[in-house]
């Protein structure tokens, strides 16, 4: 028969073991989030894990697109809409995304457009062509390098259900990427049927990122 003392000792042992087990679990889950510094007796070798640091931002580099009296044009004309011109106050929209990464992690981001058109006299998104390029060298971004460009309505839904995905990418190291957006009236817009009525399409560009 075990003595009272033995049972108490066993209870205390169980308590200590339980606490240790949970602490080990905490350490495993938190992982690299916290720094661990160790020192060995065999020299000045330091084994260090420092915490990662992530910063992400996006900048709207130019004014928003503003084109009035826009008429249907072909994709080849739309791709080269200038910054300014007749009826063009701002022909394209420049923006950038910047990631600062100090640590081994990737950051995934998504650029998406949100339709903010007025409800009355709205130009339907199926008649709005979308074109995204690198702002520095004007090369088409992946998905916009095909012969047929997408309309706003044909773009896939973004992770934010209210928007349409323009592009998704990722950073594995710090950097900045500059984008240029153009939109125009598709050449299949039935302008003669509108009988003099003007229509408007508006959109904003948002960005989300996760790591």
């Amino acid at each position, binding site marked *: 028969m075990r003595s009272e003392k033995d049972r108490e000792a066993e209870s205390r042992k169980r308590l200590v073991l339980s606490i240790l087990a949970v602490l080990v679990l905490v350490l495993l889950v938190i992982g690299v989030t916290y720094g661990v510094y160790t020192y060995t007796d065999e020299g000045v070798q330091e084994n260090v894990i420092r915490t990662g640091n992530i910063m992400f931002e996006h900048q709207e580099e130019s004014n928003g697109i503003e084109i009035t009296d*826009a008429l249907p044009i072909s994709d080849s004309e739309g791709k080269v809409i200038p910054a300014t011109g007749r009826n063009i106050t701002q022909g394209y929209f420049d923006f950038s995304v910047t990631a600062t990464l100090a640590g081994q992690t990737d950051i995934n981001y998504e650029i998406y457009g949100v339709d903010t058109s007025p409800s009355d006299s709205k130009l339907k998104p199926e008649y709005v062509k979308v074109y995204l390029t690198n702002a520095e060298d004007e090369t088409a971004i992946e998905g916009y390098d095909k012969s047929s460009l997408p309309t706003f309505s044909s773009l896939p839904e973004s992770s934010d259900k209210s928007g349409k995905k323009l592009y998704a990418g990722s950073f594995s190291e710090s950097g900045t990427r500059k984008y240029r957006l153009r939109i125009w009236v598709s050449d299949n817009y039935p*302008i003669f049927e509108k009988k003099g009525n003007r*229509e408007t399409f508006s959109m904003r560009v948002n960005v989300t990122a996760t790591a």
Partner: protein
Amino acid sequence: MGNNNQKQNQNENQSKQILLSVLAIAILVVAVVGVSFAAFTYSGQGKKENTITTGTITMEYTEDTNGISITNAMPVDEATGKAITADNAGAAGTTTEGAGVFDFTVKATIAGDVTIPYEVSARKLTIDTADDIVQLPDKDIRLYLEKDAAGGTAYTQVAAPKAFSANGTGEEGVGTPTTNMVLDSGSFTATQVVKYRLRMWVDQAYQVTAKKAQYKVAVDVYGKAS
């Protein structure tokens, strides 16, 4: 017995303490893990509006007079045909109704930077062959078009009088059907009114027979924004 109960209570208390300790640490883990995940998301809302507003293009085709209607028309030469007047004088025939010329207007209203090519064409109509009326051959009809691009009545020749000949280019062009005959082509780059006058007569080479013959056309206008 009392000692046994006391020991049992102590054991229960210890078990409770162990359980509470484990729960407290588990909550701590969840709290730490939860904060760790919330630190790695970003959401940026754009502030700039990107807006395009459409321009407008309207085209109108207006028939200003009744269609040409000449009965008992006799073949005439080109000079006589070109001189046919609105009241049909010079048509070498008598008219019971209608006029010797057909006036119509093509108008474009444009707000925007665009070129709109357009074509004016004649569409041959089927005649009513009752009362033994026969179709005049295409080669024996002359169509003659004049226009004033300033929207007035100072008409000038578009082209020399021609026999009906279908030459529309369909969707490859501005949309004129291939069964139509293009009488004039032009383009609008700004708001503009163009007035036209059409004449039609039987060419002098036509051999008149005992049968009555007839020819009918309608005028169509096609335009395409480009």
